[in-house]
């Protein structure tokens, strides 16, 4: 069996929406003396492995997976990258 096609999905909180993890970590870094820290943004990396050898169709399917489940369009943006 051939190696699976691998894609990295990166899910990030939409700009402008509350990001408690980012805000709290920004403050902690500044408290440690890194006063130049303007902002910290957290996200999530998800690696999806697919069977098959049609990379274009696989990537389109991963986009669809993001829209339906892996990201919440109300609060998150996503990117898909072939590994």
């Amino acid at each position, binding site marked *: 069996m051939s190696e699976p096609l691998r894609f990295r999905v990166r899910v990030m*909180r939409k700009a402008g*929406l509350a990001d*408690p993890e980012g805000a709290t970590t920004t403050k902690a870094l500044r408290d440690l003396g890194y006063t130049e820290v303007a902002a910290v943004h957290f996200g999530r990396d998800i690696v999806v492995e697919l069977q098959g050898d049609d990379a274009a169709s696989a990537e389109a399917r991963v986009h669809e997976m993001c829209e339906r*489940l892996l990201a919440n369009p*109300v609060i998150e943006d996503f990117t898909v990258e072939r590994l």
Partner: protein
Amino acid sequence: MKIAVAVFPGSNCEHDVEYALGLLGADVELMWHQEHDLSGFSAVVLPGGFAHGDYLRTGAIARFSPIMDEVARMAKEGLPVLGICNGFQILCEADLLPGALVANRDLNFICSMVHVRVESTAAALTRDAEVGQVLRIPLNSYEGNFVADGATLDELEAAGRILLRYCDEDGNVTDEANPNGSARNIAAIAGPGGNVVGIMPHPERAAEDLLGSSDGRILLSSFVHAAEEASR
């Protein structure tokens, strides 16, 4: 008239909801999330807990449980649908309510009594209450921080779909009285028809004086009355 309580793997408040609605005389039945048919029910409650382990995002997996097709049908037909805590998160993920619930502002799990003020009575959750009424009910969540874009918040506000706001014991809606950072102190909202409602604190845990408060009863009895009306 029967009310269904949806039970997902990881739900943990279904019996509290069943008990509290039972106190109010409702006929309640627990329905497993794999059920495809809620045709015998006039209303449905999505209880609190950690449906499907809260993996990925709270409510993200649960929204695809088979029972959610029936929940969506009932919502569309105007039947009362109530999401409490994790149930509220599921309704948002399912796009039956706007916005989303993210981690609390201070990244702490909140387990305490809070005060909420009734802002609107034009919905299944608050129809028997009075605007301005202050209720004391427990909040129990890590992802209770309601977020939505500015246009959505304005729309909720203008349409009277913000049902409850966090406040102090005198009913003042202030930043200090906002336990989790929710936008505009929002603790409960309704969908456009007023029949779909989501609330972050737990009215079912404030249904008897023995529990420290019975302020949740007015919200649950509103819901039961809405269900009775829908069944006619």
